């Protein structure tokens, strides 16, 4: 997954501490505005519907419900029996 960082370099400019705070707050606010409507991108490298499948380098892992927060790992044989694929 590519890391995306947005930077503004103010070279040779000394801003007041208040101004720097306002800029920082403004950037954070903009990021939050954009993220608020975030949904997984179906065109992205890991987008699309959630599929049951092996996680590279991991055992078979499937989120299941348990008070809304749980995950469990299965081995491939178990998973094939349960999900019949």
């Amino acid at each position: 997954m590519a890391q995306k960082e947005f930077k503004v370099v103010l070279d040779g400019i000394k801003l007041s501490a208040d101004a720097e705070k306002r800029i920082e707050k403004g950037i954070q606010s903009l990021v939050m505005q954009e993220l608020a409507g975030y949904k997984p991108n179906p065109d992205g490298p890991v987008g699309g519907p959630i599929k049951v499948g092996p996680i590279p380098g991991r055992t078979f892992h499937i989120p299941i419900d348990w008070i809304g927060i749980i995950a469990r790992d299965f081995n491939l044989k178990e998973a094939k029996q349960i999900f019949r694929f």
Partner: protein
Amino acid sequence: MKTEADNKTCPSSTCKEGALLLGVVQGDNTVALLTGTPLTVDKAFAEKAHEDGDPERRFRFANKCVQTGCKQWTGHSCGVITRLHEMNERIEADAQLKPCAIRNTCRWYAQEGDSACTICTYVVTNNLEEV
């Protein structure tokens, strides 16, 4: 008197004003953690995020661990990460942990160490089916 144990952060909290935005759930149901300066949820974010359904399906939020104020608290620890750790005991901790904005105070990390961080990115706070 406050102790260090009183100041832990819950990495699987709900979307409300003042919480930190910890990560976003990706298409494969894993969580991409946000690093750098923690982003604090404000009223506008909370309202917009709720417009598209439960934000806890699409984001992960962090907030103060309230211990006995949470139904997941077992009396001495967080039952969520304990259970997750037991069910994923074959998962080995990543050799190099991903950057995390709250690791220093994270309740799960304090309890289970590095393996908590490996499990963490597979946890969606609300993965209940919508009916």
